[in-house]
C-alpha cells in the first residue's frame, strides 16, 4: 500500500520537474524563465522528498523516524530558500536594468 503512494508521489514530482525543465528551455525571457524555475522546482522537491520520507518509514524504528524528520527538514529549507534565491535573481536582473519581454520583441 505504501509503495503505491510512494510511486504516485514520485511520478507527480517528476511531472512537475519536467514542466520546470521545459519552461526553462522554452520561455522567451529571463523573467518568464524564472517563473517555472521558482515554482515547479519547489513543488516537485516537496512531492519527491515526501515520497522518500514515506518510504523510509516502511519498517518502523525510532532511528528511521529521526531520519524521516531530517528529510522533512529538507522540505522546510527548500520552501524557505528556493523563493529567496528566485527573488535574489529577479532583484539582480531588475537592478542591472533588464527590460521585460513584450509582444514587440516577438520573433527575436
Amino acid at each position, binding site marked *: 500500500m505504501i509503495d503505491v503512494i510512494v510511486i504516485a508521489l514520485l511520478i507527480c514530482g517528476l511531472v512537475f520537474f519536467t514542466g520546470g525543465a521545459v519552461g526553462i528551455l522554452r520561455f522567451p525571457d*529571463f523573467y518568464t524563465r524564472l517563473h517555472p524555475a521558482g515554482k515547479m522546482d519547489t513543488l516537485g522537491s516537496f512531492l519527491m*522528498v515526501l515520497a522518500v520520507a514515506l518510504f523510509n518509514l516502511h519498517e518502523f524504528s525510532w532511528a528511521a523516524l529521526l531520519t524521516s524528520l531530517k528529510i522533512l527538514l529538507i522540505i522546510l529549507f*527548500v520552501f524557505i530558500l528556493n523563493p529567496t534565491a528566485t527573488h535574489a535573481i529577479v532583484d539582480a536582473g531588475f*537592478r*542591472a536594468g533588464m527590460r521585460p519581454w513584450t509582444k514587440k520583441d516577438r520573433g527575436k
Partner: protein
Amino acid sequence: MTDVFLYTGLFLCLLMVASLYRSVFGPTVLDRLIGVNAIGSKTVILLLLIGLIYERVDMFVDIALAYALLNFVAVLAASRYFQKRKGLYEEPPYK
C-alpha cells in the same frame, strides 16, 4: 522498489541535462544562474534517491541538507555580485 528509484534518478539526470542547456547557452549570466539553481535543486533529490538505492539514507540525508544550503548560498552570492556589475548583456538592453 530499487528499480523504481533507479529509473526515477535516471529521469532526473535527463532533466538535469536539459537544464544544463540553459546554463551553457544562456544569453545572459542570470540565465546561466537559473540553470545552475535548477540543477542544484534536482541534485538534492538525486542524493536522497541514491541513499535509498544504497540503503544508507541516514548518511545521505546530511549530505543532501548540506548541499541544499550550499546551493542557496552560491546562488545568493552570485546574484548579489552580478547586480552591481554592468555588462550582463552580450548586446545592450535598450535599443
